[in-house]
């Protein structure tokens, strides 16, 4: 049985995608925060060094011999470090007049008096620089002199550091994303698990098992389970009703037929005239035909019903064959026909014993009906590859080769069945049963003698 359902989206996929999205956003935020912070720290530390450098130069500024002298201490430039090949520029002015350093270094606009330092980022000689300007007022006879020292450094090292940090931050964010994703998928799985457990417990059930689901489920799934239990309750009721209906229908049809048949037999005992006897016999034949048809229709209804709900057990087909044969023994004896069963206990077959017996019964019934008076009917149980084969041989006229293909269709009878009672459902029932067990039915004629052979192929369990 293949189950097809209308699937629209998946809770698992939706939850997983949402969790992955959240993890990605958080990872990106983490990256941006780390980068911002790193940049801030890098800039601050550079600014501090630049400030220290500018301050130490400024400290060395003095007035000597009527002019401003600046003795640039070695440490002022060396503290800027030479780890990288960052270049350092400086410029000293007194009252806006250039004293020493790089002339082209643009001067910071003098800040307000209170501020001692001002920072700026600009370009010089084609490179980005960070520059600090510090101002000091020196007293002199002709008035105060404002000495401004600007120290600048290229940003190469800072950029390099930031690049390094950025790589690390990227790995950090990526790692965070992966870890969050794994945890997310795991938690989705554990959230979806009760659904899977419920589905398994329902599909593991036997076909006749319509009890309410008892397994504990999370509160969110309770309405589903309640609905499922109610549905099974209704299904159980309707199955019972249809079974009762079939039994009732059989009863209603067969009881009057039984009265009719018995009366006809009694009448046949009493009448003498050959014409009357012939018509009474004709009547009995007609009654038999209709009761057999009714019987097979009901059998067929029952078989169709049961093939959807197989009650599977392990079956020994030899044992089942014997039992079925014994049941037909009196019928065969009436016609001096002998029923023979041969074969050894085959490997077990899983199936519905009642259905298989019904199918076999129909075929043996046919064989008894079609075989001539006083002949043998043989059942052979054997194995062929992984099939267990039950063959029923009779010594009748055999199948008409042209009939073989359509004989198993409903209500079809062979061309050589005119004088025999039957509704033509026997082979159909047999085929439906064997197919419901994953096997097939083979019709053939016997090789060396006349007679038909019907073989059931059941897969070994």
């Amino acid at each position, binding site marked *: 049985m293949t189950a097809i359902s209308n699937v629209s989206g998946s809770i698992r996929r939706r939850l997983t995608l949402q969790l992955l999205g959240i993890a990605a956003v958080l990872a990106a935020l983490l990256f941006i925060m780390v980068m911002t912070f790193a940049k801030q720290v890098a800039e601050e530390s550079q600014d501090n060094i630049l400030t220290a450098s500018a301050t130490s130069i400024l400290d060395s500024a003095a007035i000597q011999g009527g002019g401003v002298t600046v003795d640039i201490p070695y440490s002022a430039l060396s503290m800027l470090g030479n780890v990288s090949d960052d270049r350092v520029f400086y410029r000293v002015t007194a009252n806006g007049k250039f004293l020493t350093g790089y002339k082209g270094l643009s001067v910071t606009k003098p800040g307000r008096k209170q501020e001692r330092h001002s920072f700026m980022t600009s370009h010089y000689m084609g490179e980005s620089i960070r520059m600090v300007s510090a101002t000091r007022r020196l007293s002199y006879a002709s008035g105060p002199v404002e000495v401004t020292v600007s120290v600048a450094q290229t940003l190469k090292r800072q950029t390099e550091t930031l690049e390094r940090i950025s790589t690390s931050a990227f790995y950090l964010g990526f790692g965070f994303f992966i870890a969050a994703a794994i945890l997310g998928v795991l938690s989705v799985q554990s959230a979806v698990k009760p659904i899977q457990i419920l589905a398994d417990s329902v599909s593991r059930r036997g076909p006749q098992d319509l009890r309410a689901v008892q397994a504990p489920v999370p509160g969110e799934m309770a309405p589903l389970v309640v609905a499922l239990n109610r549905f099974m309750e209704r299904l159980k009721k309707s199955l019972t009703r249809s079974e009762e209906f079939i039994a009732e229908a059989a009863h209603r049809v067969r*009881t009057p037929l039984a009265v009719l048949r018995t009366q006809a037999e009694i009448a046949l005992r009493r009448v003498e005239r050959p014409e009357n006897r012939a018509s009474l016999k004709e009547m009995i034949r007609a009654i038999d035909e209709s009761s057999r048809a009714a019987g097979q229709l009901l059998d067929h209804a029952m078989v169709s019903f049961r093939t959807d709900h197989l009650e599977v057990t392990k079956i020994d087909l030899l044992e089942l064959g014997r039992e079925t044969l014994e049941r037909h023994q009196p019928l065969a004896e009436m016609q001096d026909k002998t029923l023979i069963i041969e074969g050894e206990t085959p490997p077990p077959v899983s199936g519905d014993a009642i259905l298989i017996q019904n199918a076999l019964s129909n075929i043996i019934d046919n064989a008894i009906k079609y075989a001539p008076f006083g002949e043998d009917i043989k059942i052979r149980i054997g194995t062929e590859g992984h099939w267990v084969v039950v063959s029923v041989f009779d010594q009748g006229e055999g199948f008409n080769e042209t009939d073989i293909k359509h004989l198993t269709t409903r209500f079809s009878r062979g061309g050589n069945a005119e004088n025999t009672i039957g509704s033509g459902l026997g082979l159909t029932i047999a085929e439906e049963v064997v197919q419901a067990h994953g096997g097939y039915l083979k019709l053939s004629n016997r090789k060396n003698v006349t007679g038909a052979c019907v073989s059931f192929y059941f897969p070994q369990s």
Partner: protein
Amino acid sequence: MRYLLVEDNVKLAAAIMDRLTMDGHVVDHADKIGVAEDFVSTAEYDMILLDIMLPDGDGREFLSNHRSRQDETPVIVLTARSEVSDRVGVLDLGADDYITKPFDFSELEARCRAVWRRQSGGVTNAKRFGDVIFDSLAGTLNVGSQTVSLRNKELRLLEIFFGAPEVIFSKTKLVDRLFPYDEDVSENAIEVYVGRLRRHIASSSVQIITVRGLGYRLSLV
């Protein structure tokens, strides 16, 4: 043989009783489980024919009560339901066989015989006429020290003759009792079986006499 028929459909019961009486059997009829229980407790039967759907209960209940009383009287269930559904249960509950309505009386007889044969388990049911001993359950015929196994039709035919020696049976009657109705058998077939029986008892004091225009009868020489 003495039958108890448990069947609630009055018309069907009457017809079955008529038909069984015709063959010389004695039949009591119960239309309810309660009545059937009364019959079983007061008389001995050779066979109980039991319907399943009864007005005051399920025939299967009667069956299981019957078996729990250790009553060995054989039971054949008459069922109108589908074989598939009914097979379950009745045999497990202790029925000896079941037959689906409407049934052929020769099939019913055949089933009864099979049940009795199984149950007798070797106990003989021999009848003697002249120097011939006939055991209808074992299907054997003893003439002097000779034992012959009979085929089914021969057995049935001899059963009819032994049931009423010296009574004339017409060919038509014999065909009716020997063959199912859905078979077209000519009355000449009877001649074949009578011929075979005559060969079996040729050396005995018993013979089958042809009564011209009327039929056959079993008689002593």
